[in-house]
């Protein structure tokens, strides 16, 4: 369990926020933070910076696996639903076709719905999985309290390292960011 840090006013500390002047500064600072072994941290930029995920050492997301599992489940459920309804739940002869199924023939008629349910489940898995993995939705974030942080959508570049990180230390982390070329460093309260 990570240590809990507080200010003199007994406010819990969220972490440290450092401001950088340009994308190159931020990029190299991220490499230093990554190499120092931090895991609970993020960078904030007004525009996407190519190669940032490598500089930050971001691992590949598990989302595709989630989507595949849920999607194939949808395919199976979609088929089963139709198969059960057509053969047991509510048998109904349409256009002289078989009830449907791989054994008795007439599986063709199940394909569009099976496909669509597969797509539907995949789409839900993608969007909900993405939100869940990103910790969204959330009402607020401690960084928003900082006036300076608003510039992250304009012309400034930020790194924030959370106090919850196992390697977090108020002095050492501040020193690291200073050495990495931060133009200003602030503590962020919860």
């Amino acid at each position: 369990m990570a240590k809990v840090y507080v200010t003199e006013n007994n406010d819990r500390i969220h972490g440290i926020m450092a401001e950088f002047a340009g994308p190159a500064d931020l990029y190299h600072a991220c490499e230093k933070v990554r190499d120092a072994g931090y895991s609970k941290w993020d960078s904030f930029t007004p525009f996407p910076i190519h190669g940032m995920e490598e500089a930050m050492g971001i691992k590949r997301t598990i989302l595709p696996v989630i989507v595949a599992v849920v999607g194939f489940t949808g395919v199976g459920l979609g088929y089963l639903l139709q198969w059960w309804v057509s053969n047991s739940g509510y048998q109904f002869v349409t256009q002289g076709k078989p009830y449907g199924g791989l054994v008795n023939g007439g599986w063709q008629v199940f394909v569009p719905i099976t496909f669509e349910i597969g797509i539907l489940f995949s789409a839900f898995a993608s969007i909900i999985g993405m939100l869940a993995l990103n910790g969204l939705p959330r009402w607020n974030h401690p960084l928003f309290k900082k006036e300076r942080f608003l510039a992250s959508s304009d012309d400034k570049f930020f790194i924030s390292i959370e106090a919850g990180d196992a390697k977090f230390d108020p002095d050492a982390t501040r020193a690291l960011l200073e050495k990495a070329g931060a133009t200003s460093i602030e503590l962020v309260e919860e």
Partner: protein
Amino acid sequence: MTTAPHDIHLPAALRGENINLAAGSGKGLGTGVLFVGLVLALAGLGLGFAGMFGASLAHAVAAYLVGAMSVLAVCLGATIFIMIFHLLNAGWTATVRRQFENIMSFLPYAWLMLAPVLILEIAKDGVLFHWLHADFQNDYLLIKKAPYFFGVGTEFPYFFVLRYLFYGAFWFFVTRRLLNWSYEQDRTGSVEPTAKSRLMCAWALPLTALTTAFVAFDFLMALDFKFFSTMWGVYYFAGAAFSSIATVSLILNLLLRKGKLQGVVTTEHFHDLGKLQFSFTVFWAYIAFSQYFLIWYANIPEETSFLLHRKDWGWKALGVFLIVGHFVAPFLIILSRHIKKNLTLMLVMSLWCLFAHVLDIFWIVRPMAYAENPAESPGWGGAPLDVIAILGCILIFVGYLIQKVASGPLVAVHDPYMHEGLEHKNYV
């Protein structure tokens, strides 16, 4: 390979041995393969005349047509991709486009490969093209469709031949212009050829799409003149895109194995080629099933005849094999990005996809050879004839391609989007 003055500005990866095969390499091999292909293709037709393997002439023409239409699909797919790349200013394709162009340069010859079929069919009064056969001239559907097949007030298929000549003229014109501009850029380094190509593709792409659809109507769908499907052009295009991507992947894969194009074509490019391969695996399945589903559901005799010809005499097994080999297996395998980036596995998949593509065309054409007299089919005994004729057509293409790839730079070095192509990266 001489170095033009402007070449010295190119990065090291785009100079010298990295982008050129040794002078004269591939000449002997290419000529040899081309020659063997020609011999086999002609032997295939000749064996049909002689009635070897218990086969009929229709069988031989069908086998030859499978090979020719498979190769034509690869060339058309490559041409359409080049046009799309130009129109979209697709940066990442700058380093791989030359291989599409090498394939595209065979398009007029692939068109020429159809000529023996057409000449034989007209001379022999429709051994495979039943709409040319005297027995069917009183068929109500054929009388209704005669203006499209023959023209108005004629017994010679003028309109069919005219269409065939138009395809050839148009394809020759378009492919030569695109190729000449690309080679001009190699020599001069000018940006202009790219702009000209893009402008031409804007009008040439829809026409190429239409000719692709109509050549499929004329040489594949018309094998059963009663049958019609509005999905047919798309079906052939799906196979064309599928097989041309597989061919390009294969060429690049082999070149990388020879130590060429290092740092020019990377696993990132293979990732994207793999995505295209995957998407057209799905696309093929989607439209193939859509066509099948509508025929199955509507149950109209003229349409179901298509599937009935492919149901008995063992053809059903091939159909099921196609579902697995052309869709399920590639779908599950190429789905993962690790495999798209694995050169060894992609080599296997490229070869497999090409095999599946030929089998797909085979499934379309070959059952029609004995459609009217299924009992006379030699069954598996006729298989050697199929192998000889199909392999012949494919080897002509392969032999030509070996020479073509070896003859010039392996990449269009002065493409204005080359910097994007070289630094192309898919993000996490």
